[in-house]
């Protein structure tokens, strides 16, 4: 389940009003989420949640659900 906060950060970066983000949603399914824009989303997520990811953790992300899990694990949830 994607949290409302994470969804808001992603949609804001992509200039989208709404998009049905599911756990298994992958970047190419979301308009504007390409490998270049990805970096803006990651930096914003780090900033918003006050966390720091390792490069290896970022390279392992496959879908939005993975990003949610990574954020949760950093926040000790």
């Amino acid at each position, binding site marked *: 389940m994607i949290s409302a906060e994470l969804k808001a950060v992603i949609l804001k970066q992509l200039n989208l009003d709404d998009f049905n983000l599911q756990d298994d949603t992958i970047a190419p399914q979301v308009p504007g989420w390409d*490998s*270049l824009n990805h*970096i803006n989303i990651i*930096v914003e997520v780090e900033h918003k949640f006050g966390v720091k990811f390792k*490069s*290896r953790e970022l*390279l*392992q992300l496959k879908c939005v659900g993975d990003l949610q899990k990574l954020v949760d694990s950093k926040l000790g949830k």
Partner: protein
Amino acid sequence: MFNINLQYIWDLLKYNPSDPLIFSTSLFLFLFLFFLVFYNLFGKNKMVRLALLIVFSLYFYYKSAGYYAGILVVSAVVNFFFAKFIASTENFTWKRIHLALAVLLNIGILGYFKYTNFIMQIIAEMNKAQFEPLSIFLPIGISFYTFKSLNYVFDVYLDNMEPTNSFRDFCVYVFFFPNLLMGPIDRASEFLPQVQKELYLSKEDLGKATLLIIAGLFKKVVIADYISLNFVDRIFDFPLRYTGIENLLAIYGYALQIYCDFSGYTDMAIGVALFLSFKLMDNFNSPFKATSIADFWRRWHISLSKWLLDYLFKPMQFSMRSLRIWANVIAIFITFVICGLWHGGAWNFIIWGALHGFMMSFSLLVQKPKQALYKLLRINDTKFLRFFQVVITFHLIAASFIIFRTNDMQVIKDMFSQIFDFFHVEVFLQFAEKLPIILGLMLLGYVLHFMPAKIENGFRKFFVALPWFIQAILLVTVIWIAAQFKSADITPFIYFQF
């Protein structure tokens, strides 16, 4: 008499560096059919079938690289065990050390064979000393299979896949002859599970494989080889002897030639692999239909660009992410310089890569004002805009291929000076009259290339639905046509040297 024949057969089958076993030779066709019979005879016995595949693949490489085929075995051993070490420890420092050692060994071997002379030349030039190149043999396809093996180690390091426990399966992956010399640079995570599968070929796969071989042969032998030998090479050799229009047509011709040459070979590779019941990844998707340079790289040599994206660009991009857009700009530029260098140790490849890196970085920096301008002119998302984007992108790509083709800056200067100062459009009529086959083939090549995907898919479905004997007749017909077009000895595939 009998002895002479045996000697002839031995000469034909033994290692010959000037005669690699490429898919468009009759020797390959003959050996492959022979191999296919045994491969299917032992279809149910996986052990024997895979052993046959390994032995045939090693022979295939021996035929082109001689005893340097041993590098393949070294590559398989090194990467199999390093991936095992990486997966066997939970300690990240150890994982990283093993990864670094594996990369060092792989790139070290590749670097020695491919870049030693280039590096020595640069050092000699810096010291203003005389440069005597060392005689280092370049084993063909080394860049392809080094990158193929490395993706396995990277994916195990990133936990994208479990390492295989079977050295035999891993050897099938590394040695696999269809993609050994010129890709596609397949992913271990996609390929290894297929080694375990039973031999099965549906009617649809059989039709697809036949069509891929037909298309590949046609592109390579009929279009690429013919226009290269009879037109493109001549202009590139002496551009000043020809008018601007002929130089321009040669640039268009070379773009088509390199595409048909390379994609034709990978079409055949994918088709040959499919006959063995293996599905390889797509490598081309009508690249000249691209609307931007970035789009071109999503359509051209996809297996390499995806490799560079996943294992080079992204790690760099993430590690510099605090720089935001500049992280993208810097990572793109470095990735493409390395992409150029991957093609060969020469300045023209580096400049070619840097040029693509520059064009993509520049386009990234002006993306926002560009979009705003399109909106202002009310042309965003219109066919009109897409048409111009395709035309401009194609010309940038075709121009960049000139640097790819020649290391001689004077040739490039001469070609452009002819185009801008000595165009003579009226010569086109003479050209069409004197070289109707060249013009016809170029037109055919581009028309087929720009064919809407719908029509292409429709034709594929139609071909697959044909009875097998009609497909076989069509295949034999194209082989016959290809044989007619082989006006001279087979020219090596452009991408071999990489």
